[in-house]
């Protein structure tokens, strides 16, 4: 029986999330205090050594991103740190759990990252519907300001920082980092072309580091315990722990923080209590809508960014949606494609035209105008075309579920 290993959820249920004193009594803000006593390059070195990979989905090295942002434009007076709390990937709710239960942990991670890159201003861009999280973060910011943990010359150092909260306005696409910047500047949520990357030209044209809530909430433990401690957890390609959020046809749906390298089988049958109504496992979607379908052949693959990639799957945000026998893959694919069509911003042609086209193929299949094999091939052709020619990652997403259907469920779709 595997056990949870909690780093970002270590205080869950142990402290009153609205009490900064509770947080401090559990050793909170010690890592930040340690950090401002070190040179910022030392912090970045530790982060690079920890090999922490971004938890927002793409899995890029958090340390390297800090390094790039820190080194960009040395004479720039203003740099920004943004915490991406716009969580909107279907099936994902890990960031909400962190923010509701331990808002100071995320805040402490933000402060350390801001110090590392030399940002004097930090934003939390949070989903507008997350009322409770917004309330908790607001309270946490005020409390930290009162204690002088956010403000001028924190812990007697030369570092000064301010943190502000901004609310998302209901667009999945705004969770994408460049679109998020547009939204923060008060514009429609249209993506920007990269390069330049935010590390060079981000918010208001200034170097900006954007990290996911879970990524940031991991930083205090790494700085406090050292990178060797962190790399001793998890697997070589994906060290540390990860929160998985499991939903669907399962007995104990919920969130579980475990070391990377556990298997889907362990997550579903040991922590998740098995499939509902004693049924058989049929399929799971890993990573949300912009994720991949897998069948039982992946149940024993260790969870990690690269191990799943080898299987044609993605880890993504850590969402796992489980389906028992009898569920219709067609129906769920249709729902995913509807979601993408709704969220497409319409800025570029391949995605604006491609999304309805994909649904049109689904419609034709439903009405028996085309066969299953032909439909899947058409979907694949269209989504491949979109992946190659769309402007931003949203138009490049439908290929993920579609390709995995072809790989794992060609005869059952």
């Amino acid at each position, binding site marked *: 029986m595997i056990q949870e290993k909690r780093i970002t959820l270590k205080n869950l249920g142990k402290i009153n999330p609205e009490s900064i004193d509770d947080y401090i009594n559990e050793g909170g803000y010690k890592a930040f205090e340690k950090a401002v006593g070190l040179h910022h390059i030392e912090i970045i070195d530790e982060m690079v050594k920890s090999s922490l990979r971004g938890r927002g989905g793409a899995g890029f090295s958090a340390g390297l991103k800090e390094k790039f942002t820190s080194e960009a434009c040395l004479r720039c007076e203003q740099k920004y740190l943004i915490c991406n709390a716009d969580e909107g990937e279907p099936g994902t709710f890990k960031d909400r759990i962190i923010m509701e239960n331990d808002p100071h942990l995320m805040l402490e991670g933000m402060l350390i990252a801001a110090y590392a890159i030399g940002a004097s201003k930090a934003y939390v861009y949070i989903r507008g519907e997350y009322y409770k999280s917004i309330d908790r973060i607001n309270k946490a910011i005020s409390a930290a300001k009162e204690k002088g943990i956010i403000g001028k010359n924190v812990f007697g150092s030369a570092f000064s920082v301010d943190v502000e909260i901004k609310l998302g306005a*209901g667009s999945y696409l705004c969770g994408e980092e460049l679109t998020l910047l547009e939204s923060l*500047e008060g514009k429609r949520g249209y993506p920007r072309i990269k390069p330049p990357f935010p590390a060079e030209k981000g918010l208001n044209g200034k170097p900006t580091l954007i990290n996911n809530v879970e990524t940031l909430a991991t930083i205090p433990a790494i700085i406090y315990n050292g990178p060797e401690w962190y790399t001793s957890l998890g697997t070589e390609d994906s060290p540390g722990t990860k929160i998985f959020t499991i939903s*669907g046809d399962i007995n104990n749906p*919920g969130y579980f923080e475990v070391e990377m390298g556990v298997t889907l089988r362990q997550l579903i049958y040991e922590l998740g209590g098995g499939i509902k109504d004693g049924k058989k496992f049929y399929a799971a979607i890993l990573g949300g809508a912009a994720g991949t379908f897998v069948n039982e052949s992946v149940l024993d693959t260790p969870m990690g960014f690269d191990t799943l990639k080898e299987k044609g799957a993605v880890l993504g945000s850590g969402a796992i949606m489980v389906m028992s026998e009898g569920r219709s893959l067609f129906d769920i694919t249709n729902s995913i494609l509807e*979601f993408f069509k709704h*969220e497409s911003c319409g800025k570029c042609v391949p995605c604006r035209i491609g999304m309805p086209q994909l649904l049109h193929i689904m419609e034709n299949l439903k009405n028996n105008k085309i066969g299953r094999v032909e439909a899947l091939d058409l979907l694949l052709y269209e989504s491949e075309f979109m992946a190659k020619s769309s402007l931003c990652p949203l138009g490049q997403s439908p290929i993920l579920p579609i390709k995995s259907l072809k790989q794992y469920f060609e005869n059952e779709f």
Partner: protein
Amino acid sequence: MNEKLKETFSSFEGKEEELIPLLQKVQENLGFLSDESMEEISRFIRIPASMVYGVATFYTQFRFTPKGERHIMLCRGTACHVKGATRIQEEVENQIGIKVGETSEDLKYSLENVACIGACSLAPCAMVNDTVEANLTPKKVEKIFSISKDKK
């Protein structure tokens, strides 16, 4: 100008990057974005009204018609879909007598769809004002909305 609007503006400077927070605050205080509000916002931030509309209509959060006393947002995310969100939607529409996207004439209810609201382990779910209603079944839907009918 509407007093409430004036009061809302007083905590802003009128900078262009404040547009979205300002729209959010106006909607929070006045319930929805009326034509009058939109024009005043355009004057306040000094950008054309067409640009204010351009931004506001892009984001699903903004509404241009009044909200019902009980504003229901039904989740149509993948996890909720797997657990039967379509049937729940039918049942809600039946119970309150309006369709998704509508507000009832007596302004008691309004109904909308949202994408995943991060409560997938409680699927299928909905948000009624700012409370999450979890593990919905047709029976539960009936209960939630008939109780409220009696109260009123």
